[in-house]
């Protein structure tokens, strides 16, 4: 019984550890997508943030400055996305793809020039990392709690505040918001900036909390899994959180099952479990498990009438 309890605790802790960046990223993405700005660039923002968190933390010795740098880096990318998609009404998917590719290149270019370690930052020790707070060996650093807190917060902002009401409106019918005398660009910029804030925290978690340093392409598709979680949660905070937990659990199981023979099934290919979030999202989008309906104005640039 004790064994079972401690196993359950270990799996829960492992799930939360893996799910934290997904949750933060998904909550950020929700703000953006709810306002009608598709964000394929979550991955790039998170990667950029992870790099600057580790780099600044390694140089200054302070994890908190690292977190601040991560947020600034992600916000710069978010503003770039906003500048292209809101101000210049560019294609949101193209902009997101550009941000991902720029981040993948720039982190390695700067990392190599700065630290001369093939794109990695020096290993972080002691105060350069965010350390666990309460529980031993659970990895419960402050960003895990921040992720848990971000879900009700996001729900409250989107569902219960005036800003949230307008945010939802601008994602469904920007013309109505504009007619009411509210600036569509300013609303969307605020949504994109909120997205950058959360993506920044997610990136910082990867490089200075979960791991001890930045390595190239360390986001490894997690930004896209977060995007999948948003869709899986049908653009609602708590269901999206649930999807993140499921995807996190799948990952924790995949690590556990590596090379293990399951009775009656044989060895389950790890790649299959890792591919499940993507597969499930495809099934959901195809309408085989319920229907996911995106905000109606998502992806459509708003052109003010003259």
């Amino acid at each position, binding site marked *: 019984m004790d064994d079972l309890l401690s196993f359950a605790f270990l799996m829960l802790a492992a799930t939360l550890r893996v799910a934290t960046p997904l949750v933060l990223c998904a909550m950020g993405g929700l703000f953006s997508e709810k306002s009608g700005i598709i964000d394929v660039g979550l991955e790039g923002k998170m990667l950029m943030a992870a790099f600057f968190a580790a780099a600044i933390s390694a140089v200054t010795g302070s994890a908190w400055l690292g977190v601040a740098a991560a947020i600034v880096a992600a916000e710069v990318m978010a503003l770039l996305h906003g500048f292209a998609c809101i101000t210049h009404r560019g*294609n949101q998917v193209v*902009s997101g793809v550009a941000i991902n590719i720029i981040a*993948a*290149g*720039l982190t390695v270019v700067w990392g190599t020039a700065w630290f001369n370690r093939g794109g990695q930052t020096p290993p972080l020790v002691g105060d350069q990392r965010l350390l666990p707070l309460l529980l031993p060996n659970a990895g419960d650093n402050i960003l895990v709690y921040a992720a848990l807190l971000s879900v009700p917060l996001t729900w409250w902002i989107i569902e219960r505040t005036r800003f949230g009401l307008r945010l939802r409106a601008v994602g469904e019918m920007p013309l109505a918001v504009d007619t009411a005398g509210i600036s569509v660009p300013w609303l969307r910029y605020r949504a994109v900036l909120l997205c950058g804030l959360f993506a920044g925290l997610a990136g910082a978690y990867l490089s200075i909390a979960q791991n001890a340093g930045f390595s190239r392409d360390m986001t490894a598709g997690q930004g896209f899994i977060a995007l999948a979680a948003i869709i899986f949660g049908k653009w609602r905070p708590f269901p999206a959180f649930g999807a993140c937990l499921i995807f996190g659990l799948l990952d924790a199981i995949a690590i556990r099952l590596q090379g293990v023979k399951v009775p009656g099934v044989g060895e389950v290919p790890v790649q299959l479990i890792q591919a499940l979030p993507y597969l499930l999202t*495809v099934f959901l989008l*195809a309408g085989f498990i319920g229907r996911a309906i995106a905000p109606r104005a998502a992806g459509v640039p708003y052109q003010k009438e003259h």
Partner: protein
Amino acid sequence: MIARRPLPAWAEIVVLPLVNIALAFLTVGIIVRIIGVDPFHALSLLVVGAVGSSESIGYTLYYTTNFIFTGLAVAVAFHAGLFNIGGEGQAYIGGLGCGLAILAFDRYLPAPLMIPLAILAAALFGAAWAAVPAWLQAWRGSHIVITTIMFNFLAAALMVYLMVNVLIAPGSMTPQSRTFASSGKLMSMHEALAAIGITVAPSAANVSILLAVLCCVGVWVFLWHTPWGYALRTMGHNPEAAVYGGTNLRHMTMLAMCISGGLAGFVGVNELMGVHQRIVLDFPAGYGFAGIAVALMGRSHPVGIVLAALLFGALQQGGAELAFEIPTITRETVVVIQGLIILFSGALVNMPRPWLQWLLSLLSSPRSGEVPAKRAEGS
């Protein structure tokens, strides 16, 4: 607000793309400067590295071949109003098809039969991998951007599984298949040229560049000189008009995506039959994503795509040489340029347009000044 006239065609097709590239290069120049390298020195090393010898020209052309395939792939989908971000996965699976065909038949078939069969298999597998997202969009209403992204990851997972568990050569430590027999290899460029009496240094360039040229012509004929191409472009411009014209949008979505996926699948031909001569992991190496930049810069026209692919091929090869010469600069500088070109010629394409309009209005202002004067005379 001043009413702006649309740009003349020559400015839209020639000047605007050049401005976009210039902005991308300016930005990367600043980044290189921040790193502490003279950008002009870096540029000269890059140019020499890309076209300085017959060997480097060969490598430039080898990279160009991949960019032509993925650029065309993205462009065909663009014309249909579809955004195919799945080139990466389609190239991967196309390579799988090509490799499987060779592994199955290379001991029995001679090269003249084996090579067309393998090329066909690459196209079919690439097309099949694109057909699923196309079907899901056309019949089930799921968004093709999201599904093609997911299919990239699914392709990567599938390939890792197959290479590690199924296709790995017996006794091999790295996940790669056995080497193809000689009938499954494409002739390299220096061998082909030596056969007609021209001597060039050996490089990775191979005859699949001819396939790329053929694809360019084929795409051009298909899009602008066949009824299907016309229907496809109509769908991209105005789906309602296409329906009114009798086009079945579902079938056209399938057709566009299958052609797109098949073209992306040809990356496998260049990489596996031309260079690696076995199935390896990770050979698409970002070409699928770079295809978006190529298509955007080439304005989705085969001629533009060839020019853009040449630039990207030169950057890829020159960037490798540059990284070799200056250790503080890595090959990823080229990735940054690719990203910036997607940004400036895609997402920010509307930004420099007013600048050009303003510039042109300055140049033509004496003439436009005459018009009100004449009107005053008449009234």
